[in-house]
């Protein structure tokens, strides 16, 4: 049997296309980053680089990026069932990362730079995985199921953006300090970056060709939300470096994407777990409880823990990069296990809409 390139409407569209609504979803899942990129580009062109924006980006990290790490940990550790389901991620990995952290403290000139380096390359890889996942969620919501080729092409483009940027940064011998640690550059040959650029554009071209073919055949446009994460990712990693202050905001945008979905998931799962009836009051109360929790958690992970590291006599400029690398690598693993879309326990709640959580179901009494 011939395998379809794009299987149009192979599944029934979900009742709701968005988590909240079109504009809010658009802004949270990448639209805001496109707007900020444009705005900062104009500002830099007119007024030059404004360092104040870097401070704003740091503030937004407090607001969004740090809590998103805490949200992941909360999802894993808040129930014994989850811990029992993922014992290695929940129990063994933290010990292993503690070992790596101690080794980094013991060898700040050899082990620590490489430990940080692994994190620095893994981080945009992780962003890319999330972008692919979000595209698939919206495709599913719209009733599209990607075939193998177009899925690979989309992933190739999204991952290609980060690989290209990373490869370009690793050509040569320059060192980019990360706090007080100097991770070595890999000294990649330029050819690797050139090949990655070709792969990125090639994958993007194949995906667009698939989409065009499908659209012509079905006389329908594919929903914009399916393209949004890939477009945002392209701006973050490829175009973004043309606006010097912009890349400081990228972790915030990644956190924002994540929090929207994690929040919807949290509301749905808590509701199902405790058999709570939908209501606006429930949504507000649970949102507040969850938000306060992940804000505190984010502060513990990114402010308190690095300062604990200084108890061993290390400067914060050394302790901070080592500890946040460990925290984030753990996050990459946790995200990998708790957000598998193929898992029905995950995939199904990801089609939720806010209205389903806040509006009471009307029960029609049927005549006997």
């Amino acid at each position, binding site marked *: 049997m011939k395998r379809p390139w794009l299987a149009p409407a192979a599944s029934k569209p979900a009742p709701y296309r968005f988590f909240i609504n079109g504009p809010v979803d658009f802004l949270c899942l990448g639209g805001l980053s496109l707007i900020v990129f444009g705005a900062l580009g104009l500002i830099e062109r007119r007024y030059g680089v404004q360092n104040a924006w870097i401070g704003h980006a740091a503030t937004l990290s407090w607001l969004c990026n740090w809590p998103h790490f805490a949200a992941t940990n909360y999802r894993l550790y808040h129930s014994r069932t989850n811990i029992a389901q993922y*014992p290695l991620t929940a129990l063994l990995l933290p010990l292993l990362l503690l070992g790596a952290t101690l080794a980094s403290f013991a060898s700040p000139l050899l082990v620590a730079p490489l430990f940080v380096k692994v994190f620095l390359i893994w981080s945009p890889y992780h962003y890319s*995985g999330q972008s692919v996942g979000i595209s698939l969620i919206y495709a599913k919501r719209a009733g599209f199921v990607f075939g193998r080729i177009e899925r690979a092409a989309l992933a190739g483009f999204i991952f290609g953006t980060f690989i290209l940027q990373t490869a370009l940064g690793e050509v040569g011998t320059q060192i980019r300090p990360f706090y007080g640690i100097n991770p070595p550059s890999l000294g990649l040959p330029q050819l690797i970056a050139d090949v990655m650029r070709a792969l990125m554009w090639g994958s993007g071209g194949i995906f667009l060709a698939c989409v065009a073919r499908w659209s012509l055949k079905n006389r329908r446009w594919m929903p914009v939300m399916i393209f949004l994460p890939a477009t945002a990712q392209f701006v973050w990693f490829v175009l973004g470096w043309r606006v010097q202050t912009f890349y400081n905001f990228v972790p915030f945008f990644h956190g924002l994407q994540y929090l929207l979905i994690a929040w919807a998931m949290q509301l749905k799962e808590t509701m199902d777990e405790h058999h709570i009836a939908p209501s606006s009051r429930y949504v507000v109360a649970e949102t507040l409880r969850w938000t306060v929790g992940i804000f505190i958690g984010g502060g513990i992970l990114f402010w308190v823990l690095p300062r604990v590291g200084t108890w061993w006599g290390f400067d914060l400029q050394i302790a901070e990069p080592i500890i946040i690398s460990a925290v984030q690598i753990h996050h990459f693993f946790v995200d990998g296990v708790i957000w598998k879309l193929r898992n029905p326990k995950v995939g199904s709640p990801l089609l939720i809409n806010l209205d389903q959580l806040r509006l009471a179901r009307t029960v029609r009494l049927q005549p006997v």
Partner: protein
Amino acid sequence: MSRAHALVLTAAAIAWAGVSARADDVPVRSSERVVLHTTMGDLALALYPKIAPHHVEQVLKLVRMGAYDSTSVYVAHAGYLIQISDVTNRLMPLTPQQSAAVHKLPAEFSAIKHRRGTVSMARWENDINSGESSFVILLNDSPQLDGRYTAFGQVEQGVDVLEAISLVPVDRDYHPKTRIEITRAEVVDSAEALAATSLAGPIQPPAQELPMKAIWSSGLLMASGLVTFLLSRVAPARVIGSTGLLTVLIGFFLFWLSIVPQMHQMPWLSGGAFLGLLGVFKLMAFFEYPSTK
């Protein structure tokens, strides 16, 4: 008591055989020079083929075969001598050919005085014909050794290196606490060739160094293997597979640790390591892969 230990005690034995000699004669030096490249600098030795032909022949042969490579300074006695270990005690095992070339040497005592810089073969105390490959280099005149040990050469360059080696911290048996290795020994064909060779001066002794990378690497991989084994008795395949993935991750990180310092000289290695890292990330997506059943 180890063999080398006995040898140094022998070398240190105070005795005077009263061998008559033409003490001030200057012995004929061989055209070849032996250069010892050590972790603390280089030494050049001239040999006396007319005084101790068998000793010189064996030492030159062993040096040419690479038998002295990865031997070490066995004794460092400040103000007295340093002793190079027997080739059988070197870090790398001897090849069959090298082993076959090591023979006991008949004593070749002479009137040559044991003075500062003299190279003399070590031997068992109770057997004057037991010298093989371990030799001492004197830091001071030692007349008590004259006529009892075979002097077969003289330090020609690197006395400052010799002094530096003699001052390293040692234990109560004068064994250096830090390994000072003869990384390579070579024969230079003539004094002129030696003059054209650039020899390293005294180098600070390396810090007390255990092979920490190797210890951590093997320890971590063993621990991971042990965890996998223990889990295999109680855990489902998903967990065991994930432990295997952790072993891959640990192994890759240790691999990186080994090669990153050299990456800039080998861009294709760095390219492979970069792509390998991306592959490891991809592999980690299967870590504790949830069951969809």
